[in-house]
């Protein structure tokens, strides 16, 4: 991503014989003197898009809340107080009463934070599992081609040709709906997405010169895939993973809402909406707030994905680094006249 700044053309993707870690992590600024012009850091690129910056802040907040929430709030999410039942959101009852209470007098804020942890503990492992397994199989299939490629693609087609919720409904009929089973099912249904992307990229890269060169120098297929194909496909795959994160989160929420996902006493945003449904006429905040949380998180992930698509594409990256005026000029130039 941040490597090879000299040539801004499409060939800038070529990582050369020693590719650097292409992940979004910032690299040590003290390592090796940089040639001018300095490559744009990821936070500079993030600053170039105000929407993306806001989305990143939101996602960071959700993540922090999910990680630190249990430590800071203790058992506030389970503490019942029937005298405080169905209190509307107000400033009168301290931080915990800020977003109101549910029918058992439990703090909505504490429950939302608790649910954020559950939701992320399903969505993140599911996305990571499908990303790792799907891209490994996909690159392997695309690099080797032939029978291995068709076999992998057929399996992917079979999984993809059925709606994920249908598969999940059937699978959860058989297995008990627990966090581990949810992760497993969501991961399996999303593997084909990465498999297809990785295969397409690997099949195209297979015939590039630097892959030929690696092969000529005697690199094995595993090493070639890991050192030469993975660094180039990774940005695309990460972008797909960001989009998919929204999708997995929505599927988990839908399943929990339908009663076949997260089960009480655990709490997830989808489950909270389902629980709040019967109080819709008297206490709107119980159903509305968890939904708002889902929308904000998924929209943020989608915006970040759109940004990542620009930031990882050398031909498009100038849109984030160029001064605002120049961008506006370029945008006007694009319009058909």
């Amino acid at each position, binding site marked *: 991503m941040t490597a090879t700044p000299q040539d801004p053309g499409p060939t800038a993707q070529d990582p050369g014989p020693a590719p650097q870690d292409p992940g979004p992590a910032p690299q040590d600024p003290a390592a090796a003197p940089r040639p001018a012009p300095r490559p744009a850091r990821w936070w500079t690129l993030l600053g170039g898009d105000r929407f993306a910056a806001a989305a990143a802040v939101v996602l960071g907040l959700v993540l922090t809340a999910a990680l630190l929430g249990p430590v800071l709030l203790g058992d506030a999410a389970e503490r019942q107080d029937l005298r405080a039942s169905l209190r509307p959101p107000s400033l009168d009852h301290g931080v915990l009463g800020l977003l109101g209470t549910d029918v058992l007098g439990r703090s909505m804020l504490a429950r939302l934070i608790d649910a954020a942890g559950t939701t992320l503990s399903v969505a993140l492992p599911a996305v990571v599992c499908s990303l790792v397994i799907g891209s490994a199989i996909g690159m392997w299939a695309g690099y080797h081609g032939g029978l291995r490629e068709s076999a992998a693609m057929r399996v992917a087609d079979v999984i993809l040709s059925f*709606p994920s919720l249908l598969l999940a409904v*059937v699978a959860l009929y058989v297995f008990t709906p627990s966090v581990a089973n949810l992760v497993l099912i969501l991961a399996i249904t999303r593997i084909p997405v990465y498999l297809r992307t990785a295969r397409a990229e690997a099949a195209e890269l297979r015939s590039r010169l630097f892959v030929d060169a690696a092969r000529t120098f005697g690199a094995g297929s595993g090493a070639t895939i890991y050192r030469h194909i993975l660094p180039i496909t990774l940005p695309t795959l990460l972008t797909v993973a960001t989009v998919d994160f929204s999708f997995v989160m929505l599927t988990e929420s839908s399943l929990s*809402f339908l009663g076949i996902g997260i089960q009480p006493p655990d709490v997830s945003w989808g489950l909270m909406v389902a629980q709040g449904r019967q109080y819709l006429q008297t206490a709107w905040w119980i159903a509305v707030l*968890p939904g708002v949380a*889902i929308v904000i998180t998924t929209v943020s992930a989608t915006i970040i994905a759109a940004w990542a698509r620009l930031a990882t594409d050398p031909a498009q990256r100038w849109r984030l680094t160029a001064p605002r005026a120049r961008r506006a000029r370029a945008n006007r130039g694009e319009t058909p006249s």
Partner: protein
Amino acid sequence: MVTFLRKRVVSSAIPLLFVVFGVFCLARLTGDPVNLYLPLSATPEQRAEFAAANGLDQPVLVQLWDYLGQIARLDFGESLRTGQSAAEMVFAAFPATLQLAAVTMLIAVAGAVLIGCAAAYRPNSPADRVCSFLSMTAASIPDFWFAIMGVLVFGVTLGWLPTSGVTGGAEVWVLPIATLLIRPFGVLVQVVRGAMVAALTAPYTRVARSKGASEKRVVFGHALRNAAMPALTVAGDLAIGLVNGAVVVETIFGWPGIGKLMIDSVLQRDFAVLQAAVLLTAVTIFTLNILIDACYALLDARVRQAAPA
């Protein structure tokens, strides 16, 4: 064209077979069907009798053959809840879902083409940015939450629309369709817009303009025809994904369709109905895939000629 379609039918049938065998394995491997159908209090004699009556004491291969025969005769057994034939229940529920899905897809495609073209005509204009942001939000809203908000605002607070049910005029359709529509619509607008932006800057558009074609003809005749391919791919995926939405929408609005039937049978562990519903959905998706492929072939001569295996 016929060769092309025949090849596609064969390759699309593979997933269908997977489902048929998958359902069989599900019924056999996840526990003895005897335990599934009979109550816990059944005596060993009753169990043996049930097993013999349903061929469950036969070898697995014989059972598989019987099972395939039953499917061919559309005999999926009886519902545990109502005692009705599962096939009858599923076929009674199917038209409700189909109507809902067809109306939704029609509105989504027509609306997305219009709005997507309008947004792509002046890329990065304020209207385009608003449209992009709204469609992105629409694609990220959880449908069940959107449905509940609709009920809260239009059903409870304003009292304009019924909160659930199917009896009544056009107003019972509004909330279910709006809920089902929001995600496919948001995604399709984005896809049409993206494809149209690319098509409107392509050389053939410039040629069309320079030969003096009207703007209407340039946009809808030249650019849209070329932008239709990616939109069609996504629309097909979304139509299949409508099953997801249908499950949620039908559960919330009490719509007597196949999605509600499926969730009810999962929650009440009614295997015969679940099996019939899953198989019927699989056949519908199979048919839909063939239709989409046929559309591809109609749109693009290259697909017709180079029919992939």
